[in-house]
C-alpha cells in the first residue's frame, strides 16, 4: 500500500515537473500573445487626452476578424476607463482613436468616418476629433 502511495506521489510530482518544462517552451513561443503589453506602450501618450466615457475606434483592420477583435480588445484594455465604440452614422463620440497596422493617409480615413486628425503619435496611433456639423 505504501508503495502505491509512493508511486502516485512520484508520478504526480513528476507530472508537475513535466508541465513546467512544457510551459517553459510554450511561453517562450507565445510572448505577449494578444499584444496587450505593446498596446499599453503604444497608447500611453494619448491616455491623458481621452475622457472616461465613449471614444470612437477607427482602424484599418476588420473588427470582425480575429486580428481585428484582438487589436480592439488590446486597445480597449490600454485606454480604459475610456470605452471604445465603433463609430456609426448615429454614434459619433467627440473623440476617436486610430489604431492602424500600416502607414496611410490617416487624415482621409478619419474624414471618411466624420473625424479630423488632431495628433499622430506614431506607431499607428492617432487622435481624432469629431467634425462639427
Amino acid at each position: 500500500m505504501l508503495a502505491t502511495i509512493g508511486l502516485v506521489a512520484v508520478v504526480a510530482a513528476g507530472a508537475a515537473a513535466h508541465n513546467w518544462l512544457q510551459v517553459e517552451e510554450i511561453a517562450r513561443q507565445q510572448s505577449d500573445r494578444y499584444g496587450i503589453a505593446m498596446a499599453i506602450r503604444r497608447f500611453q501618450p494619448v491616455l491623458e487626452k481621452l475622457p472616461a466615457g465613449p471614444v470612437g475606434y477607427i482602424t484599418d483592420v476588420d473588427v470582425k476578424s480575429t486580428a481585428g477583435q484582438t487589436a480592439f480588445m488590446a486597445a480597449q484594455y490600454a485606454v480604459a476607463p475610456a470605452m471604445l465604440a465603433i463609430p456609426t452614422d448615429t454614434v459619433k463620440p467627440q473623440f476617436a482613436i486610430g489604431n492602424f497596422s500600416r502607414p496611410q493617409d490617416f487624415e482621409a480615413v478619419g474624414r471618411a468616418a466624420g473625424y479630423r486628425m488632431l495628433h499622430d503619435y506614431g506607431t499607428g496611433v492617432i487622435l481624432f476629433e469629431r467634425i462639427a456639423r
Partner: protein
Amino acid sequence: MIVALLPHLVSLVIGSLVVHALLSSSLPRSVWIKLLVTLPLGYAVGAGLTSCLYFILVVAGAGSRSVLMAGEAVLLAGSVALFMRNRDDETGTATSATPLHIWLLRGAFLLAIAFSAASWSAITSANPHGDWDATAIWNLRAKFLISGDPGWRLGIAPPELGTDIGVHHPTYPILVSSATAQAWTLTGTASSEAPALESLFFALAVAALLAGAIAWRHSESLGLLAGLVFLASGAFITGSPAQYADIPLSLYVLGSLVALEAAARDAKPWLAVLAGICAGFAALTKNEGIAFIVFFLAVAAWRLPRRQSLYVLIGSAPAIALTIVFKTLLSKGNDGLFPATMGLAMQRIADPSRWAQVVKGYFGALLDMGSGIAHPLLLIALLCIVLRFVPAPDARRILWHGLPAMALLAVAIGVYLITNNDLQWQLDTSVSRVIAQAWPAFLWMALMTLRAPESLAPATVAPEPTRAAAEKPAKRKKRA
C-alpha cells in the same frame, strides 16, 4: 513585485485571523495541518472581504486610497479582536511522531508546489496581463473601477449605443475584478503584477486547502495525495496564469463544502457561518457560483439541523445581498446567451446531436487534464483500487455534501444545451474551465470517501484528534 504583494498579504492576514477565530477549537494540533487549512481559507475570506469593502466604497463614491486604507485597518482591527476573543491557547506541538511516509509526501507536495509556481512564473512572464478574458473582462473592469465616478459605471453598466463597444459581460459578478482594483488602489498603480499574484494566491490556496481539509477531517496522507493529484492536472497550469475567475470560484466552492461537512459532523455554529461566507463569495465570483449557492443552501437546509442551516444563511447573507444589489441595481447588459423563447430552448434540449456534442466536450476536457500514467483520473482509480472505500454511510455523507459542486456541472450542461452561441465554440472556450471550477471539490469528495492509509497500516500513526476532541476526556475527568 514586493509592493504588489502587500495588498494580498493584508487580505491573507485579515482572513486568516477571522478563519482561525471561527475554526479555533475544531482545528487539529498539528501546526502543519493548521496552516494548510487556515491560510488558504484565510486568503479566500480575506480577499472576499477586502474586495467587497472596496466595491462598496467605490459605489459610495469613497474609493480613494486613504479611505480604503482606513477601511482595511478597521477590518484588520476587527479580525485581531475576533482572533483574541477566540484565541487558541494551545501552545504545545503535536504529541505523536510524524511517520516517515508523511514527511516524504510533504516533501513531494512542496516540490509539486514549487514546479507549479515555476510554471505560473514562466507563463506570467510571457503574458503578464493574463489570457483573453482577463483583459477583456476581469482586469478591464478593475481598470474602470479604479477610475472613480463615472468611469466605474461604464465597466458594469455601459450605455447602450447600438454599436460594438469594448466592454463585454458587464453583469458578471464583481468579486475578482474588485479584488484586483483594491490591490491597484492600495499600491497606487495598475500594474500587471497585482492580478497575476492574486491568481497565484488563489491557485496555491486551492492546492493547500485540498490537502489541508482532507488531512484535517480524514487523513494527512490522503490530503497530500489529493493536493499532488491536483497539482499534476492541467487545471492549475492553465487556470492560474490566465487570471480568470474560475480558480477563485473553485476555492470558494471547495471551502464551503469542507466547512459544511465539518459543520454537519461537529455541530459547531462557526463552521456553518464559515461555510455560508465561502458560498456567498462563490455567488459574488461567477454566475456559476449563483447556481452553486442555490444548491448549496438547499443541501445545507436538508443536511444540517435548522439552527445550523440558519447560521449558513447568516454567513452567506451579506455576499448574497451584494450580489443581488449588483445584479439588479448596479450592473446592466445582456449577454445574449439564452434563447428568447422557451420553445426554442426546448427545441435545443430535445436535439440529440447537441447532447452528443456536449458529452464529447466534457470527455475531451477530462482527457486533456493529464497524459499517460500521470492522468489524474488514473491516479485516483489506482488509489481507489488499493485503499478501497470507507463504509457506505460515511461515503454517502461526503457525497451528499459534495452534491452542490456536481450540480454546478449539471447546470453548465443545461447552459451548453440552450446557448445561443455556436455550441462548439462555447465548449472549446469554456468546458475545461467549468470542470476546473468543480475539480478540487471532486478530488475532495473522491479522496474523502477512500479509507485512510493510516487505518490500514498498523505500523503508522492514526490521525491526531482535534483540540475539541482532545479536551473532552479532560473535561469529563474534571467533572468527575
